[in-house]
């Protein structure tokens, strides 16, 4: 019998940590009301149980997913963990519980509320990452490419392969403002590192001239007789515009930081032997 306890789990925010919550839920035969992050303010009076991350337990859960639910289910769970879906942790737990009961056919249960929620959240994630493959705008600073984005979901892991295959000989950095993380690449290795803040310095003359050329192209390519701002907005929501070169010069305040700082960030992030 499943113990419907008035209990919440508190985990460390890592994927392994979440898998340990799954382990705990089976071990103690209980279903938490929610799974929360360490810095979440507690808004209810229910007690929160601290779940310690134990890589052995996490591994046991991790290996069981592809064998019991199939590799696609693992992909879904991994991607769901990157989404901005509220209570994603709880939904992942419920999904896995459902999956251990039904096996691989859980992936077909699209009308189930839990599965439906996760599938929609993952769709939101992959849509956003697809859009950003196009909407990311690099500035060239000290021969390195630098871009800033503010996505809702944590898309950097999904952008890594695309941009590494596209610019294998360049050094680049994509800064995710929402999650304070950055994708950093130099030939031929990439990594995702936490970054607190990043100011892109004033463009030099060459950079400025290419921005102007792009803006000119953007304004000219429109057929005025077919002006349709609604259509544009539905394809390219306004929240992306802020970081796109074509929408005018966004006068960036030059901070006392040195221009070379971006190069240093790339170097620091990459220099210790890192995961690719």
């Amino acid at each position, binding site marked *: 019998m499943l113990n419907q306890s008035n209990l919440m789990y508190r985990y460390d925010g890592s994927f392994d940590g979440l898998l340990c919550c799954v382990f705990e839920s089976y071990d103690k035969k209980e279903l938490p009301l929610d799974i929360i992050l360490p810095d979440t303010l507690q808004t209810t009076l229910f007690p929160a149980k601290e779940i310690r991350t134990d890589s052995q337990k996490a591994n046991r859960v991790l290996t069981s997913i592809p064998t019991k639910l199939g590799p696609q289910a693992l992909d879904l769970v991994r991607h769901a963990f990157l989404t901005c879906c509220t209570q994603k942790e709880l939904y992942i737990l419920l999904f896995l519980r459902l999956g251990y009961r*039904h096996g691989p*056919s859980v992936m*077909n*249960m*699209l*009308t189930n509320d839990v599965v*439906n929620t996760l599938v929609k959240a993952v769709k939101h994630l992959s849509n956003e990452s*697809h*859009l950003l*493959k*196009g*909407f*990311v*705008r*690099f*500035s*060239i600073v000290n021969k390195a*490419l630098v*871009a800033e984005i503010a996505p809702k979901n944590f898309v950097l892991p999904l952008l890594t392969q*695309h941009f590494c*295959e*596209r*610019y*294998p*000989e*360049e050094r680049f950095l994509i800064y995710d403002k929402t999650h304070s993380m950055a994708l950093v690449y130099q030939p031929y290795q990439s990594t995702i590192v936490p970054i607190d803040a990043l100011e892109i310095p004033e463009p030099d003359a060459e950079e400025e001239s*290419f921005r*102007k*050329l*792009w803006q*000119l*192209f*953007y304004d*000219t*390519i*429109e*057929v*005025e*007789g*077919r*002006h*349709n*701002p*609604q*259509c*544009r907005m*539905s*394809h*390219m929501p306004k929240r992306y515009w802020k970081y*796109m*070169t*074509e929408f005018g010069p966004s006068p960036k305040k030059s901070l006392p930081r040195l221009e070379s700082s971006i190069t240093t960030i790339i170097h620091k992030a990459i220099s210790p032997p890192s995961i690719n």
Partner: protein
Amino acid sequence: MDVFDKLKILTDAAKYDVACTSSGVDKKAVVGGIGSAAASGICHSFAGDGRCISLLKVLMTNVCAYDCQYCVNRKSNDTPRASFTPRELADLTINFYRRNYIEGLFLSSGVLKNPDYTSEQMIEVLHILRKEYGFSGYIHAKAIPGTDSALIAQLGLLADRMSVNIELPSQSSLQLLAPDKSKHSILAPMGYIKNRIQENSTDMIKYRHAPKFVPAGQSTQMIIGATPDTDFQILNLTEGLYRKYKLKRVFFSAYMPVAENTLLPMTDTKPPLWREHRLYQADWLLRFYGFSANELLDQEHQSFNPYVDPKGNWALNHMEFFPMNINRAPYSDLLRVPGIGINSAKRIITARRTTTLNFDGLKKLGVVLKRAQFFITCGGKVPNGLKITQDAMMRALLSEKSLGIYHQHFPHQQESEQLSLFQSPSIIPAKLALEDMQKCLTSPI
């Protein structure tokens, strides 16, 4: 003249070309090079008119030896002229590409001196990009009608997609408006490219490293509303092009009046955007939904219904096909229901493996029940409280805007007359369609 002026003039001259897709080929950068392509295509921005910007779409030159009446770049038009040098254009492309502004290059051109000379200039640009910069990004090149096939072959080995624009959907229209082009000069390069792609696919089986010829296939475009060709003719031509020439896409472009000419619509004519929209809807039905052209239109009904989309129109005329049991119908039948698209049909197939679907479930799968409810049953049941009445179906199948226009045009219809929508829906629109045709067409040619 600096690069800014050239870019402005040559973008302005290229913008009436519709195709801006970067789809159909998957590849990544070669060692030491730059650039990749994704089969799904990637839009990098959207212009103020809502069209996707994926490629740097410019002309090599807008100097042109031809005098096509519908074209802004025609010889007799008084417009500033400019030309890129191959080096300039290649450098601009790479610099835009590095900053992730674009997915690649769309290169077209006016006819400078003669078609062969123009093509040589275009080959030069592509050569610099591919060989010097090691550029693997997307390149769409235009085949200029009348070019020597040896040059087209060279172009095809460098580009990912090629296109020859048909522009006008019939030989008589061509003769009238584009006296320098003929049906033959357009179809010859198209046929040549098709054959080379076919040869290439057999070569690829024999030799693993056979150079790829136009790997993303070829496309074309037609101008809608500059000539009196009907939707039926255009759609049949489109179907023929997909079948015979194995085209990847046929694009339609509503005619924007750019010239004062007695042969063309008046310059204050609005582009027939709704017609273009209906043609694209029908084009999708041909390519993905298993419809054929003569199911959608026929000799008696040569124009699309302005109020109802082609799929809805087909369904209303084939009520014997419905209602359909959603839990049993095969995929190809599901696609025929208004309100069910490719994605939701696939989801239905997946979801009904583990459960019996009901209306609540269908909603979760993304089916537009507002439209679909009249045509489906879930295990023999219809939705609670559904009344299949004329008015309800109209509200469901017509957008709010077209419903408004419909009521404007037919305010005091008798109930019995309104029911005629079911028997022959195109009777009603015929009146309006005629008006629209007259608006967008000229005096008889």
